[in-house]
C-alpha cells in the first residue's frame, strides 16, 4: 500500500504549486516593489516638501530680519536725536518701508512717548505689562512677541520689541499680512496641498485659506508641528481626514514653523491606480493562464490518468474491455503515451495469462474432479476446505457440503493416528504412504493411505495441508489372506519335510541294510568264482576262465559300488562339528600326498595362503580331497599342470574355488556332474568311480552352501563352492 495519507489530485497540486510557488512569490515581489517604489517616491516627496518649506522659511526670516534692521535704525536714531527729529525719522521710515502697523517709542518707564501713525489716545499709555518688556533680561536683542490678531486690521500681528541701551524700548507692531499674501500667491488648487506658517503655539500666521488665520485656527496638535518647531523634519500624518505628507522647517528667531504639505493620495493616487491596474491585469492574466493550463492538463494528463486508473480498476475485477477507451484518448506526452502503450500491452499480456490460467484451472479442476484418488485441502485447524468427488465417494458422504462440514480429526478411527500424522507433517512437511483407518459416513471403517504435504506462507506459517487419500481396504484384506495362506503353507511344508526326513532316514537305513545285505551274496559270488577258477581250472577252457574272471571283476565292482553308496549315505548321517578350518593348509597337505603318490608328474600348485572356513574339518577334508584328486586326475595328460586353490568375492559372498588346466568338460553336462556315478570321460582315460563330486556336493549342501563348476574342453575346469 502507498503510505501517503491523502494524496492530492495532480491538477489540484499544480494549482496549489502555482499559487504557492508562483503567485505568492509574484504577489510578494509585487508588493515589495510597490512598497519600495512607494517608499522611494515618498522619500523624494518628503525632501521636496522640506525644500518648499525652507523656501518660505527663508522669506519669513528675511522679512523678520528686515523688520529688525528698521527698528535698529530707529533705535540708533533715538540715541542722538531730539524728539522732533526722531518723530520725523520714525514717520519717514514707517512710510518708506510699510512693514509696521505702528511703531512705538517707549520711555524708560515704558510709557508711550512717540508713535507712528500718531494717535493721541495712546500717547503716555503704560506698556510695562507687555510680557517681553516686563520679563526682558537681555537688553540688547530684539524680542518677537506672541502673535495676536490686531483689532484694527484683523491680521495676525507681532510686537518686535527692541530694547534701548539707556532703558526704554522701540516697539514695532509688525503685521504679518505680507506673509499671508506670499502664501496666497503660491496657493494651490488642492485644498490640502498648502504651505502655511504657525506660531510657537501652533496658531496659524499664514495659510492659503485666510479665514483660518483670522479665526486663529490652531494646528498645534499636528505631529509635524511638534517636531518641526525643533528642527527641519518631514512626516506623514492625518489632516482633515486625509493622509498628508508634510515637511516642516522652523523659523528659529521667532519660534515659528513653516509647513509644506501635500496629500499623499493626490501624489500617489495615479501611481497607485496604475500599479493597481497592472496588478489586477496580472491577476486576470494569471488566472486565465492557470485556467487554461489546468484545462490542458486535465485534457492531456489527468483524464488519461483517470482512464488508466479506471482501466486498472476494471482489470482488477477482470474486465478487459474498458481499457479500449484509453486507446482513443488524445495523449500529448511521450511519457504518457508510453505509459498507455505499456498499459495496453500489460492488459493484453494479463488477459492472455488470465485465459491460460483459466484453461489450466479448468483442466486441473476437471482432473481434480475426476481423478479416482481422493484429494483434499484442510486448514491447520483440521477443517476440510476442499475435497474432490472421489474423496466424498470414498468416505461415503452424501454431498460436498456435508463433507466440508467435517473436521478431519473426526474421521480417524484412532485419534492417536491423527496426532501422529499431524506431527509428522508438521515436522517433515511431507508424509508419504501414511496408513490409517477411517470412519466412513455410515460408520463403516476403511483403511486409507494418505500422502500429504504442508503448504506454508512466507513466514513459514502453515497455510493449509493438502494431499491424496486412497482406499486400501481391499489390498489390506488381500494381504491378510496371503499372510494366512503362507502360514498354512509353511505348516504343510514343515509337515511334509518331517515326513520326507523320516522317509529319507528310512530310505537310508533301507539302502544301508540293502547294501549291507547285498555284500554277503556278492562276497559268496566272488568267493565261489575264485574257487571254481582255482579248483576247476583244468576243466575249464580259457573262455570259461575268462568268464569266471569277469564275474569276479563285476562282483568286486558291485561290492565297491555298494561300499561307495554306503559311504555316501554315511556322510549324510554324520554329526557335523563346525570349527575353524584352514583350507590352505589342508589343500597343501592333500596335494603333497598326491605328489608323493605320483612323483613323476609335474604339477605346479598355486595355493592362496590363509584361506579359512567355518566347517567340519573331516568333511571339508573329504571335499578338498575329491576336488583336488579330480584336478590331479584330469591334468594327468598335461606336461605342465597347474592346480590353484583360492577365494573370490561374488556379490559380497566369499566363494572358494579349485582350478586346474586339465581336460575340462563340456558345460552342457555341467548339471550331471554332481550326480552319483555319472562320468564325463571314459574310465580308461581317467579312472574313478564317479561318486567323489556327488559326495562333495552333499557335504557342501549339508553346510548350507552351494557348489558349481565352470569349464571348457581341454582348457581346464574350476569348481566353486560357498560356505555360509
Amino acid at each position, binding site marked *: 500500500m502507498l503510505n501517503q495519507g491523502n494524496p492530492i489530485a495532480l491538477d489540484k497540486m499544480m494549482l496549489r504549486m502555482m499559487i504557492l510557488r508562483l503567485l505568492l512569490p509574484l504577489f510578494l515581489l509585487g508588493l515589495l516593489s510597490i512598497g519600495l517604489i512607494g517608499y522611494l517616491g515618498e522619500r523624494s516627496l518628503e525632501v521636496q516638501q522640506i525644500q518648499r518649506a525652507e523656501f518660505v522659511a527663508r522669506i519669513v526670516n528675511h522679512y523678520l530680519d528686515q523688520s529688525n534692521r528698521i527698528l535698529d535704525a530707529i533705535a540708533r536714531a533715538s540715541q542722538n536725536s531730539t524728539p522732533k527729529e526722531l518723530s520725523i525719522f520714525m514717520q519717514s521710515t514707517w512710510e518708506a518701508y510699510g512693514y509696521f502697523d505702528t511703531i512705538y517709542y517707549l520711555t524708560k518707564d515704558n510709557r508711550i512717548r512717540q508713535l507712528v501713525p500718531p494717535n493721541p489716545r495712546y500717547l503716555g499709555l503704560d506698556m510695562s505689562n507687555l510680557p517681553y518688556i516686563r520679563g526682558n533680561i537681555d537688553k540688547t536683542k530684539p524680542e518677537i512677541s506672541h502673535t495676536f490678531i490686531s483689532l484694527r486690521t484683523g491680521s495676525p500681528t507681532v510686537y518686535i520689541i527692541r530694547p534701548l541701551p539707556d532703558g526704554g524700548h522701540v516697539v514695532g507692531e509688525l503685521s504679518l499680512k505680507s506673509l499671508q499674501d506670499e502664501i496666497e500667491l503660491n496657493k494651490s488648487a488642492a485644498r490640502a496641498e498648502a504651505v502655511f506658517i504657525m506660531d510657537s503655539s501652533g496658531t496659524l500666521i499664514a495659510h492659503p485659506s485666510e479665514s483660518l488665520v*483670522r479665526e486663529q485656527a490652531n494646528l498645534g*496638535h499636528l505631529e509635524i508641528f511638534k517636531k518641526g518647531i525643533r528642527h527641519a523634519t518631514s512626516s506623514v500624518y492625518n489632516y482633515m481626514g486625509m493622509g498628508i505628507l508634510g515637511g516642516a522647517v522652523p523659523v528659529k528667531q521667532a519660534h515659528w514653523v513653516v509647513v509644506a504639505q501635500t496629500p499623499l493620495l493626490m501624489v500617489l493616487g495615479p501611481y497607485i491606480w496604475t500599479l493597481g491596474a497592472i496588478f489586477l491585469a496580472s491577476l486576470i492574466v494569471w488566472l486565465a493562464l492557470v485556467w487554461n493550463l489546468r484545462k490542458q492538463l486535465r485534457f492531456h494528463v489527468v483524464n488519461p490518468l483517470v482512464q488508466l486508473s479506471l482501466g486498472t480498476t476494471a482489470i482488477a475485477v477482470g474486465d478487459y474491455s474498458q481499457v479500449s477507451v484509453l486507446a482513443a484518448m488524445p495523449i500529448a506526452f511521450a511519457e504518457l503515451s508510453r505509459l498507455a502503450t505499456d498499459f495496453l500491452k500489460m492488459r493484453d499480456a494479463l488477459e492472455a495469462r488470465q485465459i491460460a490460467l483459466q484453461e489450466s484451472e479448468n483442466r486441473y479442476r476437471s482432473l481434480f474432479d475426476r481423478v479416482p484418488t481422493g484429494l483434499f485441502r484442510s486448514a491447520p485447524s483440521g477443517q476440510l476446505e476442499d475435497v474432490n468427488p472421489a474423496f466424498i465417494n470414498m468416505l461415503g458422504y452424501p454431498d460436498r457440503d456435508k463433507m466440508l462440514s467435517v473436521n478431519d480429526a473426526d474421521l480417524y478411527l484412532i485419534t492417536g493416528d491423527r496426532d501422529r500424522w499431524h506431527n509428522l507433517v508438521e515436522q517433515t512437511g511431507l508424509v508419504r504412504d501414511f496408513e490409517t483407518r477411517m470412519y466412513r459416513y455410515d460408520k463403516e471403517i476403511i483403511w486409507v493411505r494418505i500422502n500429504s504435504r504442508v503448504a506454508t506462507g512466507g513466514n513459514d506459517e502453515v497455510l493449509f495441508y493438502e494431499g491424496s487419500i486412497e482406499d486400501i481396504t481391499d489390498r489390506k484384506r488381500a494381504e491378510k489372506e496371503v499372510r494366512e495362506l503362507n502360514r498354512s503353507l509353511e505348516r504343510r511344508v514343515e509337515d511334509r519335510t518331517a515326513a520326507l526326513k523320516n522317509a529319507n532316514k528310512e530310505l537310508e537305513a533301507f539302502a544301508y541294510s540293502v547294501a549291507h545285505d547285498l555284500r554277503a551274496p556278492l562276497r559268496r559270488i566272488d568267493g565261489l568264482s575264485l574257487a571254481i577258477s582255482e579248483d576247476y581250472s583244468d576243466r575249464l577252457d580259457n573262455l570259461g576262465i575268462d568268464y569266471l574272471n569277469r564275474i569276479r571283476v563285476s562282483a568286486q565292482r558291485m561290492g565297491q559300488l555298494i561300499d561307495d553308496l554306503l559311504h555316501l549315505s554315511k556322510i549324510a548321517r554324520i554329526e557335523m562339528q563346525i570349527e575353524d578350518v584352514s583350507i590352505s593348509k589342508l589343500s597343501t597337505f592333500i596335494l603333497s600326498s598326491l605328489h608323493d603318490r605320483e612323483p613323476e608328474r609335474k604339477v605346479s600348485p598355486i595355493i592362496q595362503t590363509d584361506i579359512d572356513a567355518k566347517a567340519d574339518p573331516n568333511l571339508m577334508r573329504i571335499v578338498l580331497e575329491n576336488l583336488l584328486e579330480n584336478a590331479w586326475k584330469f591334468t594327468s595328460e598335461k606336461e605342465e599342470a597347474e592346480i590353484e586353490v583360492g577365494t573370490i568375492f561374488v556379490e559380497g559372498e566369499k566363494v572358494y574355488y579349485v582350478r586346474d588346466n586339465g581336460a575340462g568338460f563340456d558345460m552342457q553336462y555341467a548339471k550331471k556332474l554332481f550326480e552319483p556315478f555319472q562320468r564325463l570321460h571314459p574310465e580308461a582315460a581317467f579312472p574313478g568311480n564317479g561318486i567323489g563330486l556327488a559326495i562333495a556336493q552333499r557335504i557342501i549342501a549339508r553346510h548350507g552352501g552351494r557348489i558349481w563348476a565352470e569349464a571348457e574342453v581341454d582348457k581346464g575346469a574350476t569348481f566353486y563352492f560357498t560356505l555360509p
Partner: protein
Amino acid sequence: MSRQGFLGKSALIILIVALIGVLMSVFEGCARKEPIKIGYAAQLTGIQSNIGVQARNGVQLAVEEINDSGGIDGRQIDLLVRDDKGKPDEAQIVDKELIKAGVVAIIGHATSGQTKAVIPIINDAHIVLISPTSSAPDLTDKSKYFFRVTIPHDVRAAAFAQLIYQHRHIKKIAVIYDTDNAAYSQSYQERFTSKFRELGGTVSKVTPFSSKEEPNFDPMLKDLRSTGVQGLLIIASDFDTALIAQRTRLIGWNIPLFSSGWAQTETLIKSGGRAVEGIEIEQSYNLDSKSKAYSDFRKNYQKRFGQEPNYAAALGYEAAEVLIAALKKTGGKPDGLREELLKTSNFKGLVDTFSFNKYGDAVRPFYVGVIRNGKIVTIDEIKPGSNRKP
C-alpha cells in the same frame, strides 16, 4: 478536482482579496465609526473675537480629549466650527448651515446679540444650543432648547452693585459703557444702576460710548470726575477697559475702578499696565482657582494653544463637557438630549459645580477679583441665588 472546485478556488482567491479590502475599510470605519457632529458658532474674527476664539479653543480641547479617550460609544466627535463674525444675521446663516450638516447640538454663540438672533432657528430645528458666555437676562425663558453655562449678567450686575455699595462703602458711582455690545452692556448698566439706586446709592452719571469710533476718553472721564463720584464702573471690552483705566490715571484721577466681567482677560492686564492695578472685576469665572481640574485644564490649554485660558475658554470647555455628558446618556443622538441636559445637577465643572434650572440657565457661584501685581486675584465668591455676600 471538479470544475466547480476550480471555480471555488478562484472564487476563494477573489474572496480573500475582497475580504482584505472590506477588512481594511471596516477597520478604517471602526476608527471613525459615524462621527457625532457638534457645531460651534461664535465670532472668530472682528471685534470681541477673543471671546469666540478662546471659547472655541476650550470646546476644541474638550472634544480632543474625549476623542483621544475613545469618543462616545466608540464614536468620535466631529467639531464643525463656524464664524458668525459677531453679526446676528451671519449667526443665523451659519447655524442653519450647521443644522443642515447634521449636528446634534450647537455650542454658541459668544455674545448675546447673535444668540438671540438664532433662537427661532433652534426652536424650529429642535436643536439644542449651549452658550458658553451669552449672559443677557432676556435669553431666559426664550427657548426650550437654549442652555448656558454662565449666569445671566443681571444677577451678577445686581450682586456686584450690592457688593460695591455695602462692602466697598461707595455711595456715589459713575458708569461708562460701550454701546457697541448693547445687548450686554446696556442691560448690565441698567440692572447695576437700578440695584445701586435701590440700595440707596447714587449713580451720578452714565456715559455711553462706541468703541468702533475710537473716541478720545479724556473729555468723558474729566466730565465724570467733575460729578465727584467715589468710584467708576467700566462696562467695556478688555482693551477698552484697559485704555479707559490708563486714561483715568493719565489725567490724574486715582479713583477706585470697577469692571464688568466682560473685561476679565489677559489683554486687560497687558494693555492696562500699572493703571489697572487694584481694579475690581466682577468675574463669571474664578480663573484664580487652585482646583486640580482647573490647573490641569490650564496646563493643557497652555500647552495646546500657547496662551493663558480666559473665562470664555473655561466656559467653552465646560459647555462642551456638559454636552458630552448628556450625549453619552443619549448614545450620541439628539433625541432626548434636551431632557438629559435639564437633568444636569451638580455637574462638576473645572472650579465649581453647577446645575441647570428649568430655563436652562446655569445656577452657580460667581466671583469678584482684583488685579494685583499684574494678576487677577479672586477675593470674593458670590453663591448662586443669593444677592448677599456670604
